[in-house]
């Protein structure tokens, strides 16, 4: 024995050291499935122990089954077992039904949406890399002492860099977006398709989870969707450079980052994000019927009623003011199908931004009214025909629906804060497909009646896209 150990001492030590390191790896690495992640060492131990346990349990069940089913109270136990299963099934169903009821109650209260604004950033310098091609991360010279915390977004003026992974005393490790363990919620600017940005082993960026039947043009701008709750919405990530069919149901989309991730020198760490919640005008105690009537087209005033009178803000918007004012576009930009920038950010002149802040917080974005989808001549859209809404009758709903034009937003000039209180949000529009990134606070804001989207709604870009970059 001693001679064996002496002869193969070095090899034994090598095996021991390798085993110790593999054990250390197994204690760190987690295997992730759809439900949870488990340390590798647990997986190994469970995989080693569970087969004998299953065998023993099977043997025990078999022996017990033979005894109880054929030698002892044959059939009675089967009936008892069936009844117990029935009871358990009914209990589970009862739990499910009560959960459904709870969910229904929660959904009824789920109304408000919050928008995120970068309100504070910390500038940092890139001081080192991870030294490995398989680990695309950089070190910055700011750490816990500067208020940095894990999972803070790291950006530059041109786009997204990554997120803070580890924080030390005076340094932090930032995981770049082109690392294969990184993931960023993304949305295409024009098509509003959402996906997940992931790094590839070669250091490129791929947009995943876009269905293969979608059309993605090359050159389209990719923005953050905000769905990951790390990066504020609307930050540029890059441009689509290549689209090809993937091996599964999704497209294979390559994205060129907006910034050069291999030439980083200075970055900004987003340390504070404000969430602004649109507040519905609770002072207005309008009835649902009144609100609906406001949205229906009305008869335009006659000529002797002062064509340039104060009643109509413009000649074309002869629609009733309440109707015109009833469209507070409190929804975030994602609801605008034509790819406009976030509404709240361009509603008012932003206050002086904090140093390093990228997106000017729309502090006075109270009148969250959307800019009008301008008509080509720049006037407010002729949204409402002057038709007095008839009482609901079997023949009339379609006519009313046909006459209901796009929500009359106030003219752009009215967005700058001079909108009278009556134009403030009465009811936020219901969530649309692009609204998934918003936090639904469910603070009891009123639900909005479903706005009717007309077929002739102009799909034009808003006048100003003031999202600062």
């Amino acid at each position, binding site marked *: 024995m001693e001679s064996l150990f002496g002869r193969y001492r*070095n090899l034994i*030590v*090598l095996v021991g*050291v*390798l085993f110790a*390191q*593999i054990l*250390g*790896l*197994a204690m*760190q*690495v987690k*295997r992730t499935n759809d439900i949870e992640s488990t340390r*590798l060492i647990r997986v190994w131990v469970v995989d080693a122990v569970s087969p004998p346990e299953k065998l023993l349990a099977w043997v025990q069940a078999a022996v017990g089954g033979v005894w109880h089913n054929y030698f002892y109270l044959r059939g009675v136990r089967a009936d008892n077992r069936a009844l117990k299963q029935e009871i358990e099934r009914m209990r589970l169903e009862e739990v499910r039904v009560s959960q459904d009821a709870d969910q229904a109650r929660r959904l009824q209260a789920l109304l408000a949406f919050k928008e995120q604004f970068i309100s504070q950033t910390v500038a940092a310098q*890139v*001081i*080192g*890399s*991870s*030294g*490995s*091609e*398989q*680990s695309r*991360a*950089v*070190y910055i010279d700011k750490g816990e002492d500067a208020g940095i915390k894990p999972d803070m977004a790291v950006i530059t003026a041109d786009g997204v860099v990554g997120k803070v*992974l*580890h924080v030390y005393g005076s340094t932090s*490790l930032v*995981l770049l977006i082109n*690392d*294969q*363990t990184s993931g960023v919620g993304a949305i295409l600017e024009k098509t509003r398709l959402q996906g997940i940005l992931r790094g*590839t*082993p*070669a250091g490129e960026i791929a947009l995943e989870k876009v269905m293969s039947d979608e059309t993605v043009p090359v050159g389209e701008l990719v923005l953050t969707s905000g769905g990951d709750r790390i990066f504020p919405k609307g930050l540029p990530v890059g441009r689509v450079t290549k689209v090809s069919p993937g091996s599964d149901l999704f497209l294979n989309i390559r994205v060129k980052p907006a910034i050069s991730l*291999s*030439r*980083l020198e200075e970055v900004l760490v987003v340390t504070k994000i404000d969430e602004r919640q649109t507040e519905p005008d609770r002072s207005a105690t309008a009835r649902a019927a009144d609100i609906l009537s406001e949205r229906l087209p009305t008869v335009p005033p006659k000529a002797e009623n002062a064509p340039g009178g104060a009643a109509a803000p413009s000649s074309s918007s002869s629609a009733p003011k309440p109707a015109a004012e009833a469209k507070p576009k409190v929804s975030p930009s994602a609801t605008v199908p034509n790819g406009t920038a976030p509404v709240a950010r361009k509603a008012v002149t932003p206050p002086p931004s904090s140093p390093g802040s990228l997106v000017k917080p729309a502090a006075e974005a109270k009148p969250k009214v959307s800019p009008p989808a301008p008509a080509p001549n720049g006037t407010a859209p002729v949204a409402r025909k002057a038709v007095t809404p008839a009482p609901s009758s079997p023949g009339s709903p379609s006519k009313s629906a046909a006459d209901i034009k796009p929500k009359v937003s106030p003219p752009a000039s009215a967005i700058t804060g001079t909108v009278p209180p009556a134009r403030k949000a009465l009811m936020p529009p219901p969530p649309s497909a692009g609204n998934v990134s918003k936090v639904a606070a469910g603070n009891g804001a009123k639900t909005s009646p479903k706005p009717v989207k007309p077929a002739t709604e102009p799909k034009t870009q808003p006048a100003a896209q003031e999202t600062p970059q």
Partner: protein
Amino acid sequence: MAITYTSGEQVEVYRFSIPATILIPLAAIFLQAWLPLKLHFFRVFDLPLLVTIGFATARRSQLAGLFTGGIIGLLQDALTHQPIGLYGISKTVVGFGASSLGIKLDVEHAGARFLLTIAFYVVHEIVYFMIARGLVSLHLEWSWSRELWSGLANAFLGVLLYALMDRVKQRT
């Protein structure tokens, strides 16, 4: 009688001073983390690996080689966000192998060092690839051409580095 370096019993064994033993690996790790920021092509090189091979072939001790490689690899792992142990295992194997070969072969010649570096670079990448794919489930892509070209580049740098390390090694 002249000492011939081709004989197994007469091969010279070197050692390094304690400051050199500590500072050289640390410098290699620091440069590996810092230089790619300034010289983007430097990502191809693996300075800690070259230092591991240099130490292993000079000391010609399997125990010393595997421990040196293991420690350097673990330190390199600590800078990444991957689990600690990937480079540790790879460089442990390389350290053991390089010192084993150093006992048998003449590794003082530049040509031998060049070929040795290419071979162990590929071995290192294979071990890393297997551990990363098999245990950590990283999605890595293997390309023989890329690894061979990287091995060539590392071999050129390694020959220069070993010549520098020759200046600080001491005969036992």
